[in-house]
């Protein structure tokens, strides 16, 4: 907030008075940096790559966006890196000694960040490939036991609280590489790992089509994850709790 111009001389004068009033005030120790006691300051190891607000690197998709993803989902990913279910050495190293409580706090921080979504590059695909992507996302393929993405990730594809992430607003490279890493087992989670089952039923062409269709979709006005209980998942998923896992 800028002060009105007519107040400036008065402000300058009062600043001078303050200086005159404390001529012998000790000089702040030059080199002792002031460290804010905030979570944001504590997690510099996270924000160096994922951004201070978890914005990630939307242009490349290399460092995923964390902002606004459901907290349960984010905490689960930290746990999966810690347990070696998700494989990426720098992440495994960074989270190896963290407690469940601290990981949850970090997950809550990024889940609460509100950052506008950015478009990222999408490869040009023939119309029939995009149509195939749309079909898989919205209807699935019952012949191959492929449920629609919407069946779990919500009718708006913005995710469902507290454990299911959104799929819109993600870069093409990110979606296709995650589906690929379920197939190469560099990304896994607690059994039953329903996404691993689905990814292994997809062909390479399916993955391209789904990722391209999702990444090129217009974003809904409300990007928040839908409330808990908005979906009735058709597969048993370990990440959705023991009840689902036991089914």
């Amino acid at each position, binding site marked *: 907030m800028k002060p009105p111009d007519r107040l400036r001389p008065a402000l300058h004068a009062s600043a001078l008075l303050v200086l005159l009033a404390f001529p012998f005030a000790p000089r702040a120790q*030059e*080199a*002792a*940096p002031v*460290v804010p006691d905030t*979570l944001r*300051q*504590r*997690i*510099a*190891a*996270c*924000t*160096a*790559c994922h951004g201070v607000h978890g914005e990630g690197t939307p242009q490349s998709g290399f460092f995923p966006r964390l902002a606004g993803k459901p907290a349960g989902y984010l905490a689960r990913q930290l746990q999966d890196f*810690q*347990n*070696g*279910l998700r494989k990426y*050495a*720098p992440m*495994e*190293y*960074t989270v*190896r*000694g*963290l*407690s469940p*409580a*601290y990981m949850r*706090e970090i997950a809550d921080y990024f889940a609460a960040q509100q950052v506008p979504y950015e478009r990222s590059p999408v490869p040009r695909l023939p119309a029939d490939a995009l149509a195939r992507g749309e079909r898989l996302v919205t209807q699935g393929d019952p012949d191959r036991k492929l449920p629609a993405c919407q069946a779990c990730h919500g009718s708006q594809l913005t995710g469902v609280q507290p454990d299911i992430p959104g799929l819109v607003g993600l870069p093409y490279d990110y979606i296709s590489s995650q589906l690929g890493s379920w197939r190469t087992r560099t990304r896994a989670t607690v059994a039953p790992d329903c996404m691993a089952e689905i990814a292994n039923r997809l062909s390479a062409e399916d993955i391209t089509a789904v990722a391209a269709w999702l990444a090129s979709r217009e974003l809904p006005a409300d990007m928040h994850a839908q409330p808990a209980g908005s979906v009735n998942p058709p597969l048993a998923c370990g990440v959705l709790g023991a009840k689902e896992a036991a089914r």
Partner: protein
Amino acid sequence: MKLLSRFLVAAAVVAVLAVGWLLLRERGHAPVPRADSAVSAARLQDPALVARGAYLARVGDCASCHTAQGGAPYAGGRRLPTPFGDIPAPNLTPDRETGLGAWSFEDFWRALHQGEGRDGRLLYPAFPYTSYTKVSRDDALALFAYLQSLPPVRQPNAAAGVGFPYNLRASLSAWRSLYFNPGEFRPDPAQSPEWNRGAYLVEGLGHCNECHVARDALGGLPKQATLTGGQIPAQNWYAPDLGMQANGGLQGWSEQDLVDLLRTGRSARGSAFGPMAEVVTQSTQHMDEADLRAIATYLRSLPPRPPPAAQKPLLDTSALVDAGGKLYADRCAACHGKDGKGVAGVYPPLDGNSSVDEPTGVNAIRVVLLGGFAPLTKDNPRPYSMPPFAQQLSDREVAAVVSYIRQAWSNHAGAVQERDVAAYRHTPVD
């Protein structure tokens, strides 16, 4: 010339194997059935003994190696990288087929004290029986009682990834004749009980020597070792000199600084990171104050070190160091301070930090590349962290900033080179 040296190497290998075979002939023993054990089943279930064993297992940090990433505690499976191959830590839970369920205390004692498996097979010294041999029989019994109290987990042991000739029993036998002195710790009557307790913990169950003493080409530790520090083979971290007197790595540390580091992961002198962060989180933070003070008492008695030889750099590194100074001001000073003094309790000082000054530079290089959190402990449940710079700085820039901090303020260590950074950038982070 080349032919001659090859012949000599071959002759040496044959000689070592022959000696090993001769030594081996005298060995071999059968397991002691549990029914024949001198220790009754009821004794092993004594809750006080089990509780003491739980504490001692923490002191020995057994779970750290004997637990796979994400695996059941003590069920084994973590692979220890060594220059001779990967060695998986076995299952210590009392499962009858895959763990220690059929073991008697006598079998366990022989493993801990003599480095021999239940069937008389010689164990790889990745299992630090070179240190554990000093553990007293009472403590070994408590450890065994604790391990036998764990829930049994069925998890078969993996095969060691060790190739010829290290996979031969004769090689191990020869190695033991060079480097292994079995024998319980003998207190020094000239020293205080506290000193003796510290020495017992450091040299025995704490197995500090296994990292903080430089190993030779055969992976052996010198017999008269005083924790002068060394690079941990295959893991590529430098375990610093633990001497607290003149020219020691911990020169200038108070007893309290050391106790702080072991209990909280941080101190006025530096923070634990890399493998030591895990040691603090899993082991030392759980130790009694008296035991931590005993360790400090012992380390304070380590002899002074000779002053470092004046280093004449082979290359003019002043341009590199200058560039590093600019990078430091931009990227590091906001937390570690222009004066390298850090922020008490938050960011460690770099001035006079034994991990900055250590001889190789590997620690500073890898910390700059990897960043990471300070150890999470009861006293520091929400640690601050350092950003990883692997994605932001080139090999040359990392070499520059590390060379700068190694020579700034009161530090007088050698510059590091770009090619060191290139090599350590790709060291697997276990």
